[in-house]
């Protein structure tokens, strides 16, 4: 299931849990678990933009990270996909 989830993400890079669940015929909770596992095991990496730097002290606007949740398939993930 993990490989299928990763493959599906590669195929459909902008996804919702529901669209993945429909495609993989599992529940949304299951997709959520699979995503967490893939991140934990280093196949998928959540991007947390480090917007703030020392330059921010000269800048007046927000440094809170955006709620846009982007990820990247790691080289380990790419290797897994190419070998499966």
């Amino acid at each position, binding site marked *: *299931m993990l490989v299928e989830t990763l493959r599906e993400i590669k195929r459909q890079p902008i*996804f919702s849990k*529901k669209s993945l669940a429909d495609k993989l015929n599992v529940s949304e909770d299951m997709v959520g678990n699979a995503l967490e596992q893939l991140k934990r095991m280093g196949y998928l990496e959540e991007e947390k933009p480090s917007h703030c730097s020392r330059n921010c002290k000269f800048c007046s*606007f*927000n440094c809170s990270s955006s*709620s846009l949740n982007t990820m990247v398939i790691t080289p380990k993930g790419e290797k897994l996909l190419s070998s499966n």
Partner: protein
Amino acid sequence: MNTLALVGNPNSGKTTVFNALTGSNQHVGNWPGVTVEKKEGKFKFNGKTYNVVDLPGTYSLGAFSEDEIVARDFILKGNPDVVINVVDATNIERNLYLTTQLLEMKAKVVVALNMIDEAQERNINFDIEALSKELGVPIVPTIASKRKGIDELIKMSIELIDKDIKPNVKISYGEDIDREIKNLERLLNNKNFEYPSQWIAIKLLEGDKYIYELLSNDESLNSSTEFKDTIDRIKDNIDDYELKIVDKRYEFVNNVVKKAVKRPKEDVETKTDKIDKIVTNKWLGIPIFALIMLLVFQLTFAVGEDLLGGLMSEAMGALGEIIKNSLVKTNSPKWLVSFVSEGIIGGVGAVLEFIPLIVVLYMLMGILEDSGYMARAAYVMDNIMRALGLQGKTFISMIVGFGCNVPGIMATRTLDSKKDRMIATLINPFMSCGARIPVYLVFIAAFFPDKGGLVLFLLYFLGILVALLMGKIFSKTLFKGETSYFIMELPPYRLPSFRNVLRNMWDNVSGFLKRAGTTIFAVVTILWILAVLPLGVEPYSKNSILGQIGTFIAPIFKPAGFGTWQAAVGLFAGLAAKEAVIATLGMVYTGVGEGAALISAVQNAFTPLSAISFMVMTLLYTPCAATIATIRKETNSSKWALFAALYTFLVGWIGAVLVYQIGTLLGFS
């Protein structure tokens, strides 16, 4: 005394079960050698006392945290008579993953299917018998918060203590892994480890460092060539094995859930799907995004300016009068009165009076972001970005740039290729940051008071358009190459949380206030000194140092329709910080200060056409010093920072000149 161990995911209601079992008969300590809290308690049943140990809440029993190691060590080495696995019935898949690991440990497990009432409320129904059969362990539905099912749980657990039965469910991990487990079991069987051989074998295949370390201390094992070869072979395939084991556990959980859990048939098309069908439509997506942004700006003006706009202006005016009168009454030196009333109140005040508008704008932007719409906007823009040879993620850094270009440029770090990162960095300054808003607002109030929302929208839109155009040019010239894709999860739509929206707004407004009191104050002080020197000249006049600087620069802007020394010096000050443009105009236009007086002065100095031209220049020209410094840092090159400063100035100047010249040709004034 018999011991029962409680194990479960965080928030599964484990502590509530513990409290329901032990009442007030409990004490708290620490697990030896670690800082993890150890909770123990006792209860009596049929005259006999039982010990209960509440293990730390974990999602799995690996070696990723002290909590996991403490929990698994107690189950395997502490020899509890029964392990009560508290499972959250509303989140069954996630919780059963831990259960599968307990089954691998061959522990005597009773599952407390907790929060069963909440699951029923959500129409999640369990076939308890089937669940028990599939897992091979007794299941007791509980509502620990109401103490329901607790007596049954105690009875079932105590009955199990004396029974010599252990979970008989076997999870197959696939032929190659099962074979490897058997092989390892054989090699480990005669050793006196505190853990079961089969479990050690699984952990070795999962790459558990703790277990590897444990075995490295065993001399007889390490002298075995067969064992060494086996370990080498495992290590070569460790990622593959770990993945397969986790995968099989999920497969097992999925099968159990399919057989024993009935959920309400999820709508094939949810509300989110229905909305997405429209807002992410290939043809409608962009117009809808544009319409939403237009609505945001219209609302910003309707509420921030028409409803609340006068408040801050009046407050600043009144404050200025009070401070000025106090200074005059206390016979303060003339220069101090001038500095405070014309420099500080005129400069900083001119910036501060736009706070209501900024509050409303960032609240609305926060609502869009927290509702999940901004992710759709990025999705919709991805198609356009790709068509232009840009990476979709660039748009995310552009959205961040609407707040401030500094974090916007920092956000480009998430772009994988240097080509994408360079383009995103160089076009980010065209995103209209919040610091430019006061400039627009003064000119809108002076010339387009009834079309404020539309003008603001068009300026933001122009910023995006120019950024995309420059991105396309860069991708075809300076930075050629393949564009990589980006992965993003679209969250379901939800009602924005008041707290999140407020926090987003405060992040922006607090920074705005902070900067008004620091950078803008410093810039205004320097400009005021330049505006009153040399001594003897009329302050704020063409003959002051500031006036001379402005007079020297002004001819450049003549083709754009605002070749006055005041406008030139305003733009010059904007190189330090964009708010300084309006602070400077507030000071140099006859030293009148903020509010209606500044608007009236601007009306006299500009025409509607030159006002548009000036706003376009402010939008596009060289970003502030902090942004240039960030570009230098992110590109690690002074050359690129200089390039960014110069090319944006050129783009801004061309834009302003085109607006003014074409407008004049068309008969506008």
